[in-house]
């Protein structure tokens, strides 16, 4: 090792506590980058492999009832490679010792026993023996939630009839990676199950001998899916087809896609913040280092080292700090990514997970961190390069200070000399102060992001489930039913209110945009379910025309007063043109609303309802549900609060973890900024501070001069942190929003308080670390040393 390299290492040793603080910030940035990137890539890879290995279909279509003979005609459609027909029906399960009803989908397996498309990954047990009508495979998330194993029995109510199934296997499927009930906003593993059973058995249960109601298709890649969909729709139209859809409209796939997208956003945002802050810290430290080593730089040049040698020397020091941080970050990110991928694997029920940290991810992490640190230190390094050797031998001229603005205004008698020192220092170095404030504000902002998730979900559930919904039980009918059924529901003991709704599957079109969703028809004077505007005021349903969710309106590019084309996907399949009469603000899904009577008129099918919302006497809610379950037309029902509670429970843990992680990361930034700023101020001003000590100022008074300046900056940074945090959260919410969910930007005072307190705490901690050094200030040595 040459002497210059040795100097680099010794300098680094001298700077070690600052270097460690910076390396930790770099490490946080690289770790979040590696974690998010590797998790994202691994999930994507796993998904692709799972889809391929388990033959995820390309297109699906549902009908009311189509003859099996139609399968051959579907197979003949140009572009169709494989056809698999199925029966799918809603059901309710009864779980012993679990009071709430469990909604389920019962899906048939082919007569041969083994599916060709959307194949099952068996975690335990086996597939049902072909023809064994009482055997079923249970979805793994539900089975795990209730500890079902092969050999157990499960009671299902299908089409109003109770039937016992013997669980022979537990499985997942590419079709249900995200196991969420159609129409639900979030997964509920305890209250939603998928049951795969034999075709013949289900045909008998549903009275669907020789018929199917769902078809899955594998397409040839060379034929456009739109063309195939048109032909398939045409074939299924007279059998009550509700429109073919591709993967992009498949529920599980869409949720998976949206989760991956959120990860992608995170993979950009967090590393950017951390690496920005570490670049700033390195800039501060290196500028100071070069400043104190003016004479050394001059000697190196006098001896004959080139400007380039000098630059390489200082960049080497920086690269070692950044490199150590990056290596630590890659290791930490890999560990975190592994852990996080495991959480995702369990959540999405992937049978396997190819967790891999690609060389390119590592290279990106290292490259980006080195790039950021280089950008941060370039100015200082160029300064060292430009330092003329003769010039560097002379001490820097004393900085010019002047009377403060407030002093010039004649207010100086209000300030004691130490206070004037603090204020003049700040006024002398406004840019440095600004950078410190910016660094601290970012740390504060990151801490806000952690709590923001919590706030957003609280607010979202508050709005969606308390303000907008007031029913106790939601009832779905198996098919649109005459309104008379409502009287029957209202007559059930314990039911206090009944309100009908009609949901009809549609494709909305405007210009080149189209979106498949549902129009919900609501009674004009309904109270149990009220769409709202952005200020949470109920929006009155217009006598005619549509209320669109605002996000849906933006997606379609329509404004209030415009017309949209509506292809009704069921029943008489009318093609309508409806006026957009207003918009509503919702956070989950992207739906349209209409007044029930207007919808009835538009559809021309008479006064039908798809289900009803019930108000129930809390004490008798269980009895009401028992009674509902036995009615053949009732496809399923759910208690509103139960699902919500379970959702919040699933989220609570991961939110807590996320909040803690961001608090630690944000705290790390603030600690790093305050510690480095204070250490540098201490070394830059050690002469001044030692002089004060010699003059008789106490340690405490000297400490106040040094740390008082920082305290001012910390206090000033907090409001900026609030603004930056709010902007970051808004940016994140905007980047992550999708038709499935929009994250409301809403903060509680607790979030502000925690971010501020944690910022103060991190600052106080690092100030305490520096304060100990003031006590150790060697007065004589400092004063004797040459300037």
């Amino acid at each position: 090792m040459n002497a210059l390299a040795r100097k680099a290492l010794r300098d680094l040793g001298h700077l070690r506590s600052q270097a460690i603080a910076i390396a930790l910030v770099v490490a946080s940035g690289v770790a979040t980058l590696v974690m998010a990137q590797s998790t994202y890539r691994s999930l994507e890879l796993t998904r692709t492999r799972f889809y391929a290995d388990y033959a995820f279909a390309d297109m699906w279509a549902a009908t009311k009832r189509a003859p099996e003979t139609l399968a051959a005609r579907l197979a003949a459609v140009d572009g169709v490679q494989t056809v698999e027909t199925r029966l799918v029906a809603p059901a309710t399960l009864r779980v012993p010792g679990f009071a709430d009803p469990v909604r389920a989908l019962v899906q048939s397996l082919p007569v041969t026993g083994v599916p060709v498309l959307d194949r099952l990954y068996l975690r335990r047990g086996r597939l049902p023996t072909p023809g064994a009508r009482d055997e079923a495979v249970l979805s793994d998330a539900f089975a795990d939630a209730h500890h079902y194993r092969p050999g157990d029995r499960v009671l299902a109510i299908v089409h109003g009839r109770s039937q016992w199934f013997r669980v022979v296997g537990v499985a997942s499927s590419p079709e249900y990676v995200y196991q969420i009930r159609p129409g639900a906003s979030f997964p509920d593993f305890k209250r939603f199950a998928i049951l795969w059973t034999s075709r013949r058995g289900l045909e008998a249960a549903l009275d669907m001998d020789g018929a199917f109601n769902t078809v899955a298709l594998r397409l040839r890649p060379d034929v456009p899916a739109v063309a195939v969909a048109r032909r398939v729709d045409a074939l299924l139209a007279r059998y009550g087809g509700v429109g073919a859809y591709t993967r992009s409209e498949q529920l599980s796939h869409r949720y998976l896609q949206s989760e991956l997208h959120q990860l992608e956003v995170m993979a950009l945002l967090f590393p950017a913040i951390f690496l920005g802050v570490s670049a700033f810290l390195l800039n501060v430290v290196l500028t100071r280092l070069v400043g104190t080593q003016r004479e050394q730089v001059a000697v190196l040049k006098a001896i004959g080292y080139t400007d380039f040698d000098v630059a390489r020397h200082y960049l080497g020091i920086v690269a070692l700090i950044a490199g150590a941080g990056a290596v630590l970050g890659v290791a930490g990110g890999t560990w975190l990514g592994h852990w996080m991928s495991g959480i995702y694997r369990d959540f999405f029920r992937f049978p396997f997970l190819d967790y891999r940290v690609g060389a390119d991810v590592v290279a990106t992490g290292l490259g980006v961190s080195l790039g950021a640190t280089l950008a941060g230190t370039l100015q200082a390094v160029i300064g060292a390069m430009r330092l003329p050797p003769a010039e560097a031998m002379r001490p820097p001229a004393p900085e010019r200070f002047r009377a403060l603005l407030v002093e010039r205004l004649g207010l100086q008698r209000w300030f004691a000399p130490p206070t004037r020192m603090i204020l003049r220092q700040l006024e002398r170095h406004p840019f440095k102060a600004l950078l410190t404030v910016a660094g601290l504000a970012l740390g504060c902002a990151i801490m806000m992001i952690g709590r923001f998730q919590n706030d957003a979900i609280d607010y979202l559930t508050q709005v969606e489930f308390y303000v907008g919904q007031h029913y106790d039980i939601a009832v779905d009918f198996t098919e649109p039913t005459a309104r008379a059924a409502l009287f029957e529901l209202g007559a059930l003991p314990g039911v206090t209110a009944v309100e009908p709704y009609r949901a009809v599957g549609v494709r909305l079109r405007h210009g080149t945009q189209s979106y498949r969703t549902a129009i919900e028809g609501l009674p004009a004077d309904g109270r149990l379910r009220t769409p709202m505007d952005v200020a949470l005021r109920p929006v009155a349903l217009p006598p005619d025309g549509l209320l669109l969710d605002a996000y849906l309106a933006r997606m379609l590019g329509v404004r209030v007063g415009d017309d949209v084309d509506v292809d009704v996907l069921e029943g008489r399949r009318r093609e309508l043109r409806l006026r957009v009469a207003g918009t509503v603000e919702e956070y989950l899904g992207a739906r349209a609303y209409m007044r029930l009577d207007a919808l009835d008129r538009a559809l021309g099918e008479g006064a039908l309802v798809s289900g009803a919302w019930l108000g129930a006497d809390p004490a008798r809610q269980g009895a009401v549900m028992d009674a509902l379950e036995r009615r053949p037309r009732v496809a399923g029902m759910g208690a509103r609060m139960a699902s919500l509670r379970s959702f919040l429970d699933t989220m609570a843990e991961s939110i807590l973890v996320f909040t803690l992680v961001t608090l630690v990361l944000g705290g790390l930034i603030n600690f790093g900024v305050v510690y480095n700023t204070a250490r540098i101020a201490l070394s830059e001003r050690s002469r001044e501070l030692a002089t004060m000590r010699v003059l008789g100022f106490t340690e405490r008074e000297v400490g106040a001069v040094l740390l008082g300046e920082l305290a001012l900056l910390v206090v000033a940074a907090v409001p900026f942190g609030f603004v930056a945090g709010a902007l970051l959260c808004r940016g994140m919410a905007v980047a992550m929003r999708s038709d499935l969910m929009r994250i409301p930007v809403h903060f509680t005072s607790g979030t502000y308080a925690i971010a501020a307190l944690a910022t103060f705490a991190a600052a106080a901690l690092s100030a305490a670390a520096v304060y100990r050094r003031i006590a150790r200030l060697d007065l004589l040595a400092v004063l004797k040393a040459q300037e």
Partner: protein
Amino acid sequence: MGSTELVFRARGLTKVYRMGEVEVHALRGVDLDLHAGELVVLLGPSGSGKSTLLNILGGLDVPTAGQVWYHGEDLTAADARALTQFRRTHVGFVFQFYNLIPSLTARENVALVTDIAEAPMTPEQALALVGLEQRMDHFPAQLSGGEQQRVAIARAVAKRPAVLLCDEPTGALDSPTGVRVLEVIERVNAELGTTTVVITHNADIARMAHRVLRMADGRIASAQTNPTRTPARELSW
């Protein structure tokens, strides 16, 4: 001192620089010839332009006007890269405040030079030359002022430079220690034949020189050749 080979030739050197808001005329037209193997002492009060002249000769600084030739090569026409190369190959510097790298030991401070020189001594040889073979692994903070200055001289001569430029080498030292340092400079000049310039404001030191130049107000006020030189060890002040 028989050689007449010209090492440096300077004509009309002028240097003006700004120090904050004041303009400083450091040199006002200096003419100078330095011969190979010569030991020249440059005397003068602070601000007389000694250091500026030395810095220009050593390629650390460039004059505002005038020219310097080193072995016939025009240094004033050289760019920064060429000046760096010139210093690396031909010049050894010794400064008043030693300017050792505090984070490197004596041996490593010398190695700093031997790492990049073409045919250097070993750091051990250079330190032996200044009588510090016993203290090679000490850091600057563990050495006395005189020892530090001797390390600086070892560092300057380790590359076997043609020129040794010393700016107030004894300025921060007491008299016996200063003498010890001057003895080392004298020995380097005699044994290695290095052309040596020593800046000082201490007139006693002039007695060890071949030639003494007195500077005042940015000019060379007088030049005299010592008929007999006094050995450094006999100096005191």
